[in-house]
């Protein structure tokens, strides 16, 4: 329809958004597919054959993907049940602590656990040798170690999603099962578990996509003993000389096929098994009273927090302050010399910190703006265009961030018209795309709670579309936007999987600097730098104290 006085602002914004998401999401996807089929300028099946021949690495990737998912979902689900539905003592505090690993990167957890559990120099083994005279008690530089640490790091995702679903389930459903003769356990199994299935599967898929494309944990715990997965293989293909871009792209395509295929299956499954009984409404759940075993559950949750948060952070702190790594108390001296080194002598610190902070602020700000604009179009103007926006902006959930980075690399090494390669702009594009689903979900959640008539009333009182957004929508969604902003900032400062492929010496970021120190074996400086990185994260968390990730993630 032709409109007098030009196109309306809303229509223009909708069309602009379609261009932006296509550029952000579809372009790198297409690039990975094209890159995989192109070897040294021509079409070739060589890279495919090479990759499909590395059955060992494919098997390792599958072990890490499936193992991490199973452990993280089982642990996260158990914690959700214990802290959201059972009268576990201290559950309010514990449910906050259990989400803390979200703010500690898997890289740091892996490094700390490598120091604790490596077969030779691991602190646990050293202590055992000193105190008990036993050799090599634990060895985390194995597939089991990778799965263990990755699962620890990803537990908060299933925990948040499943406990949100548990809270929004009408307790009357369970009560009626009890009244009709089911025991507590039976009603959980027959009524609750099937109703939780969408949340369980959803979080499983989320973890699986992350675990399949995982780089940091297998790089720290796997590479030393020759345990390679797709993520580390992509890194090696690009870091060797000459870089094997096509091979990396084939790995990317392989990962993408698996994750996208599973996402498609899940969507189909959920279409048949979504239950209207799990509404967005919050119920006051009836706490199951289980007697004395509830104390065991509290110990179990506290143990998780100890292993996933306290022990790694304490290890990093200790290593940052001690003169060198030793278990002999007589040799230990504590001081700030590693901090001094990292802050005043190590040349990359300032550059990395500056880049990370700029990227954090830019990603969070642009991400919130883009997320709100997209979710406004999706929620307020349903139609064919908004269905496209909705679907495409959720694609990155099925794209491991390394694969995304590969696509961007392929595009921007060539794209002379848009010279972002070698600048932090390419990292910004990667972060924005990777975290787009979080921003859009947060925005949609906030807008669905905002009655559309509040905006209509402004239009009817003479406000244009943009004034309505500025004066009504923005102020009323501000709490969610602030929470989303802080989460996006923290996630960007921690990001490594795509950064490791996209950075150059001028555009290094904190996580990459930490990884560099790890590869150089400079453990104390590394500990000091990661303590600084953690401090930034927790300062932001404190500053936005009331911002709850719960609403944003779930």
């Amino acid at each position, binding site marked *: *329809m*032709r*409109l*007098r006085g030009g196109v*309306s602002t809303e229509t223009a914004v909708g069309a602009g958004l379609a261009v932006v998401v296509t550029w952000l999401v579809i372009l790198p996807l297409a690039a990975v597919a094209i890159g995989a089929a192109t070897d040294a300028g021509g079409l070739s099946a060589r890279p495919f054959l090479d990759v499909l021949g590395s059955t060992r690495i494919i098997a390792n990737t599958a072990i890490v993907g499936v193992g991490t998912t199973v452990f993280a979902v089982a642990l996260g689900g158990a914690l959700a049940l214990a802290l959201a539905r059972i009268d576990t003592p201290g559950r309010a505090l514990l449910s906050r602590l259990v989400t803390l690993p979200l703010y500690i990167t898997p890289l740091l957890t892996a490094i700390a656990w490598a120091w604790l559990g490596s077969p030779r120099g691991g602190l646990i083994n050293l202590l055992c040798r000193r105190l008990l005279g036993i050799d090599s008690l634990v060895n985390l530089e194995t597939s089991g170690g990778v799965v263990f640490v990755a699962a620890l790091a990803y537990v908060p995702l299933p925990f948040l999603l499943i406990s949100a679903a548990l809270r929004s389930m009408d307790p009357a459903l369970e009560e009626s099962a009890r009244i009709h003769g089911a025991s507590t356990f039976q009603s959980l199994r027959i009524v609750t578990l099937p109703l939780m299935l969408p949340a369980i599967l959803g979080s499983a898929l989320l973890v699986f996509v992350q675990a399949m494309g995982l780089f940091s944990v297998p790089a720290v715990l796997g590479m030393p003993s020759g345990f390679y997965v797709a993520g580390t293989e992509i890194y090696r293909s690009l870091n060797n000389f000459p870089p094997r871009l096509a091979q990396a792209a084939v790995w990317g395509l392989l990962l993408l096929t698996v994750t996208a295929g599973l996402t498609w299956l899940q969507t189909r499954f959920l279409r048949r098994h979504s239950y209207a009984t799990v509404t967005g409404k919050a119920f006051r759940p009836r706490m199951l009273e289980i007697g004395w075993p509830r104390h065991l559950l509290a110990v179990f949750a506290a143990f998780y927090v100890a292993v996933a948060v306290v022990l790694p952070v304490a290890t990093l702190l200790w290593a940052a302050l001690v003169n060198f790594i030793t278990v002999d108390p007589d040799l230990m001296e504590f001081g700030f010399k590693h901090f001094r080194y990292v802050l005043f002598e190590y040349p990359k610190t300032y550059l990395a910190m500056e880049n990370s902070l700029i990227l954090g602020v830019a990603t969070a700000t642009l991400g919130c703006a883009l997320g709100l604009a997209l979710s406004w179009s999706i929620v307020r103007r349903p139609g064919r265009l908004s269905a496209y926006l909705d679907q495409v902006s959720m694609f990155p959930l099925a794209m491991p961030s390394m694969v995304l980075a590969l696509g961007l690399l392929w595009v921007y090494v060539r794209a002379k018209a848009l010279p972002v390669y070698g600048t932090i702009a390419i990292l910004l594009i990667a972060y924005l795309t990777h975290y787009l689903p979080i921003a859009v979900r947060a925005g949609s959640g906030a807008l669905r709670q905002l*009655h559309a*008539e*509040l905006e*209509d*009333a*402004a*239009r*009817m*009182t*003479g*406000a*244009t*579309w943009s*004034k309505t957004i500025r*004066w*009504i929508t923005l*102020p*009323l969604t501000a709490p969610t936007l602030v929470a989303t902003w802080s989460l996006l900032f923290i996630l960007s400062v921690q990001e490594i999987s795509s950064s490791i492929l996209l950075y150059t010496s001028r555009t290094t970021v904190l996580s990459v600097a930490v990884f560099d120190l790890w590869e150089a074996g400079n453990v104390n400086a590394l500990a000091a730098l990661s303590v600084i990185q953690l401090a930034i994260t927790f300062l932001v968390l404190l500053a936005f104290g009331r911002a709850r990730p719960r609403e944003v993630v779930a």
Partner: protein
Amino acid sequence: MSAFLAVEGLGVSYGPIAAVEGVAFSVERGEHLTLLGPSGCGKTTTLRAVAGLETPSAGRIVIDGAPVFDSVQGLNVPPEKRGLSMVFQSYAIWPHMSVFDNVGFAFRVRGIGRERARPAVERALALVDLAGFAERPASRLSGGQQQRVALARAIACDSKVMLLDEPLSNLDAQLRIAMRAELSELRRRLGMTSVYVTHDQEEAFALSDRIAVMRGGRIEQLGSPAEIYAEPRTRFVAGFLGMRNIIDAELRPLAGQGRYVEARLAGDIVLRARDPVADGNAPRAAAIGVRPVDIRLETAGDGITGVVARSLFLGDVAHYYVRSGPIEICVHDRPRPELSDGREVRWRVDPDRCLVLRE
């Protein structure tokens, strides 16, 4: 065309589903038109299309001589440029602003400062009995007060036509009746032109100069409250306005009797009925409608034979359910002790009060 607001051939569709089709009406300056109908009849969609909050697929809307929507010319003026105001069902009071800022929003939008806007805002607040509430945060208001603020906001912006979307439906019964009277008085004093949407027939009767009864996205009947009440044209309108006795009938014209016809009901009961449509072409099969108060009950004499099946004593009135063969009618009368259950009675209807209803 002298209408102040004119809607012609309006259609709104969501994909293949037509929510509103072929709706046309006009409102004179100072007139109050009500769109009345059950939920899902398209009344709110029609109102929102007039407001510009919904984009119609067909039709033309003209306000005060200026077209604001025309599907043929591709004209669609955005809502803020149509010079309307609107009161919403949810009130839509902005919780992050004070009462003053809510009511004075139209001035802020036009870049008029607070002090210059103050007299108009305070006048509007005084009109809805909220003088002195200006600095109150809007989130600290009761439902009834929010309703008044919404009204003040609509008054303050000095619009051509005020649109009201079920503004009273969220209030409790007592407050609703009080606000109804206030609203009617306020509109009379301000000489507003308004389009009102409701599903409550009493509200429609009390607040309208004309009523458009809607069903399935179309206007089924348009007329003054008295007309609509006295002469519903269709089975739906009659039923929606509480005509209790609607009975299938076969109609036969009575030669030389003008608008009167013979209606044959089930069980060979024959009544004389009046066709309110002047064309004299009553359909063969239709229905007749009679209000319960228009039926005379006697214990003997002329009329159709029936038996009191059951009765309901309600104080001032009693409801008698009378069975005559296969049909049952409801009669409202003063309580009459002689009409006990099982009593044989005769009933009659004045042909003027027995209406032919079309489908």
